[in-house]
């Protein structure tokens, strides 16, 4: 062969081709990391002290104590589970009309704007923050938790439902419309069959999320297993706390497998 081939090769940069920009961004990242890590003040003496507690917590996790606080645990669990179910049912029931109202291809523009803003408000407010307000208004206990989770469910289900409806096959809707169907009949015949399986799937998924969230909002006083957990940790009863965490993990696992099985069964 006569041609001479180079014997070095460097991979061309894929994302940022400009060399200056690349260096600037790399420097920026390094500077940020230095600054950010600098803000973390660690009290090593306190951490060292805490290691013993950490060890006790790990032991509590490995040898959980279900029995001595069983009354509190079971009450918290019942509150969490009932809260989860009722809030999912109510949340989904409210989400359906709002979801339909937030679908651009079904409703006039003013209704669309109103429904979309309800969704936006519900999605941008954190469950915990909503719970704080609702506890302040409705008092401590599972009722405030129920309201919190229902409110959060609306943002989640209605948004996904509305996006789904906007993506439905337009030709099917056209075909139904062409038969002279009313708006309600249109929703019933063209929209419902296409989004129903997905709505059921989403509701089951949300049931799962609501249970997980119900374990958190108890920390700010909205009842449920989270309140029990908070108390256990405050009293340094790590074996009871370990038991509660294991119960939460087990229920989430069961509900995850259960809901995937149910979804398969229903489709």
């Amino acid at each position, binding site marked *: 062969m006569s041609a001479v081939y180079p014997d070095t090769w460097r991979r061309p940069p894929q994302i940022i081709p400009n060399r200056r920009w690349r260096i600037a961004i790399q420097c920026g990242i390094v500077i940020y990391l230095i600054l950010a890590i600098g803000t973390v*003040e660690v009290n090593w003496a306190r951490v060292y002290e805490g290691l013993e507690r950490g060890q006790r917590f790990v032991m509590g996790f490995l040898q959980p104590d279900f029995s001595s606080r069983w009354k509190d645990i079971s009450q918290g669990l019942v509150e969490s589970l*009932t809260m989860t179910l009722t809030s999912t049912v109510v949340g989904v029931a409210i989400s359906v009309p709002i979801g339909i109202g937030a679908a651009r291809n079904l409703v006039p523009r003013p209704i669309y704007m109103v429904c979309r803003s309800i969704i936006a408000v519900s999605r941008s407010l954190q469950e*915990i923050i909503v719970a704080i307000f609702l506890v302040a208004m*409705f008092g401590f*206990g*599972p009722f405030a938790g129920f309201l919190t989770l229902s409110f959060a469910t609306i943002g989640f289900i209605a948004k996904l439902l509305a996006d789904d409806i906007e993506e439905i096959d337009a030709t099917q809707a056209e075909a139904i419309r062409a038969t002279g169907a009313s708006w309600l009949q249109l929703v019933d015949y063209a929209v419902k069959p296409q989004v129903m399986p997905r709505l059921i799937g989403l509701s089951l998924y949300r049931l799962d999320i609501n249970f997980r969230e119900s374990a958190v909002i108890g*920390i700010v006083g909205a009842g449920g297993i989270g309140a029990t957990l908070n108390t256990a940790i405050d009293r340094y009863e790590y074996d009871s706390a370990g038991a509660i*965490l294991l119960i939460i*993990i087990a229920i989430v696992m069961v509900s995850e497998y259960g809901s995937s099985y149910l979804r398969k069964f229903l489709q």
Partner: protein
Amino acid sequence: MTEISHYAQVWSHRTPRKRLLMWLGWLALVALFVWCWQIMTETTIWMFVTDAPRQAADIGGRMLPPRWGYLPELMNPLWDTINIATLGTIGGVIMAVPVAFLAARNTTPSVTILRPIALFIIVASRSINSLIWALLLVAVIGPGLLAGIIAIALRSIGFVGKLLYEAIEETDKRQIEAITATGASQAQILSYGIVPQIMPAFWGISVFRWDINIRESTILGLVGAGGIGLKLNASLATLAWNQVAVILLLILGTVIISEWVSARVRHAII
């Protein structure tokens, strides 16, 4: 084929058995709902509930006008919050990568032992909210940013690990087969056959989780894990609702900006 002799008078698109089952299902759901509702509201004090609108009006009145003078005091905690989210995400992603490779069916070295362990780590991390992790960590290593960062990291393992291992399982087998056929070692198959395929998913997932972590880190301060939540907690404790209003608006703004950034970055990657 027999000839059709008559047409049915009533048409229905489900068999009677199926319809009966559906109705029973709905009935069971309603019954369950009513039963749960009764248990849940056993301890509810209805007087508070009926009183709620008045309370709401009262709180609303105290929140207005927001105390804007409080804003400069919030900048430092906000910076802390962003650092908790970012450093926590980095830590979580670093821990999630090996877990994801152990959990993916096509890369795990042992299906019987390591894969179930990895899957358990993912489920455990996913089912426990970062606020609960923070609660525990504050009790263990004391209040401060470090507890928040670790809490965010621990919660991120499950999220990133799950999505990443699904991405690994969805990689194109033929590309991996082709690299195997060249005589590459296991590590080389990983780095040439699998890593390039999951890179876009990896960055997308990480940025998405960072966005979620910004949200979650705003409230970690409620249990003492640093950031703007500390100020929220202090203002709530002193019933300074006009300060609470400022904090909530600031959180909202931060969340919207981080969502925008994450959407932009994900768009640029994909």
